[in-house]
């Protein structure tokens, strides 16, 4: 399993860093007491031991290792990258533009990307509106409604500040 080897490599990097950083700590401990460096170093030792086991297992199971193929055309993967990128943008903009506006826009964009459609069984007078307009209306209403409900419950009802 390639995952094992990557994980083992990362663990060794972490342990090395732990040793490097803890060696810069001042000697605070008096005789017979443990300083701040001891516990992280114990963990580092255990990480090294475990990564050895991971490497051993990784090499032993190599026969049935499956190659992880990253397919850019994979719809699921594209969706994930898309949603995560927009979420990063949301997190960066959030402190500057306020919760209600940003969240409504964020939700609406994601609904469009994920292809939210209006449901079929609706009252007759709504059925006359073309489907794309119905879906659009629903997206706008749901994204505004959800943001407002979250805002109301947190900020007004429970007095918990939002970004």
């Amino acid at each position, binding site marked *: *399993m390639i*995952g094992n080897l*990557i*994980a083992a490599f990362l*663990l060794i990097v*972490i342990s090395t860093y*732990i040793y490097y*950083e*803890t060696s810069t*700590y*001042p000697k*605070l*401990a008096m*005789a*017979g*007491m*443990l*300083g*701040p460096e*001891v*516990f*992280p170093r114990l*963990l580092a030792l*255990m*990480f090294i031991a*475990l*990564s050895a086991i*991971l490497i051993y297992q990784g090499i032993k199971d190599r026969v049935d290792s499956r190659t992880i193929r990253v397919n850019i055309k994979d719809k*699921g*993967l594209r*969706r*994930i990258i898309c*949603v*995560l990128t927009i*979420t*990063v943008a*949301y*997190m960066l903009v*959030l*402190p500057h533009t306020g919760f209600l506006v940003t*969240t409504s826009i*964020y*939700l609406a964009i*994601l*609904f469009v990307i*994920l*292809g*939210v459609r209006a449901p079929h069984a609706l009252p007759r007078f709504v059925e006359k509106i073309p489907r794309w307009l119905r879906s659009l209306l629903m997206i706008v209403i*749901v994204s505004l409604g*959800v*943001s407002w409900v*979250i805002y109301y*419950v*947190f900020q007004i009802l*429970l*007095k*918990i*500040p*939002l*970004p």
Partner: protein
Amino acid sequence: MPEIWIKALSQVFEPNIFLLIVAGVLAGMVVGALPGLTATMSVGILVGLTFGLQPLQGLSMLIGIYCGAIYGGSISAILINIPGTPASAASCADGYALSQKGQAGPTLGLAAVLSFIGGTISVLILASFAPPIARVALKFSPVEYTMLALFGLSIIAYVSGKSLVKGLVSGLLGLFLKCWGIDPIYGYPRFTFGQMELVGGVEFIPVMIGAFGLTEVIFQLKAKEYKIGIIQKITNVFPKLSVLRKQAFNIVRSAIIGTFVGALPGAGCDIAAWVAYGEAKRASRHSDKFGTGMVEGIAAPTTANNAGTGGAMIPMLTLGIPGDSVTAILIGALMIHGLRPGPLLFRQHPDLVYGLFIAMFLANALFLIFGLAGARIFPKVIATPKNVLMPIIVVLCCVGSYAMRNSIFDIYVMFIFGIIGYFMRRADFPVAPLVLGMILGPIAESNMRRALLISGGNPWVFFTRPISATLLVMIIIFLMSPYLRKLLPARR
């Protein structure tokens, strides 16, 4: 002490708390019934709601969500063969087969009644065993606490994944994360990478929301939209008394198994349900028919998974060691209010502890009522499309991580651990030990250093004190068990 019960009763039945439990149970049932939203995730993203409440109010609501969600998971297992939460995975086979036979209504009703019975038995066990355990634990010194934390961690690593080594790596990473920030004895800042925000350390709540909330969203985005077939009309939800009488032994056995397994650190309702299912299958005369719609096969897991809720609360309340990932969040929620679960909680805030017992019983009774009365609405709830839910959950993840200490930094922490959680799960590293390790880390480190401080740096105290030595032997047995099993002659 009856007066403490009366005091606790009057507290819980205050209209505020009662309504919060009702809201929690309803929210939990809905979220639990929706496939892809687990109990841990729902408690995690809604924990933010409780920051502004009193400890008993907030915790009662979270317990309501917990019990409601574990029950709610059985609904989608029965109706569409997809477990709503991992805890109801064992209910799928026979539950769905029964509903395919036209028994959807009675099976749903049976699930509600049995979840209630399982939950209630576990609350009774919790209320009668937790106080004496806490009294014993009061005598524990830092030596015992160190070992207890390590013991908890090794069981967690053992039960939560396919590979013990990977579970241990994940758990130790959790311990390491909690080393970041101010060191607990000397106050020296560690692993801050020059960042002001990291001096206070990485908080548990955002990591947990990321690893359970955002990670799950990423997985759901990758998966295809599930198809829901036509769900039959739900009728006759009240189960027959004769069925209950026939299953009585199975029910009581499953409830006791569920509570006991739930009480093991790290083993939650999901494992409780599987163990009870296995036992019922072993004890049944028709074990070959399991999976084809046996009543025993749905009775055992639905009873046991709700029994796991009370079990998981035992180590959490008495020792401060999480019984599963939901109780880990409950510990986090208590700590926000400056309360540390453990034996001292029973001495200092007995009204809170007993109030929680009653709140838990109430939560069980409430989902029974809602479950029987609202059975017809369930199919509509389950049909909520995923592409509407997922963006809303991401927003709630952000809100929940921000709300704890009004910090944008915590939202970034949540996001980063969401992605780390995704890759960990892809490589078969379980996420639960990481989160539980963050709870156990400070207990292990500060108690270990305190123990050595008291003993004057002599590490033999860990081996010579009887309880500590017993725990140490058990840890070694646990860690060696995969290898020991190979040495034993194979059975049959």
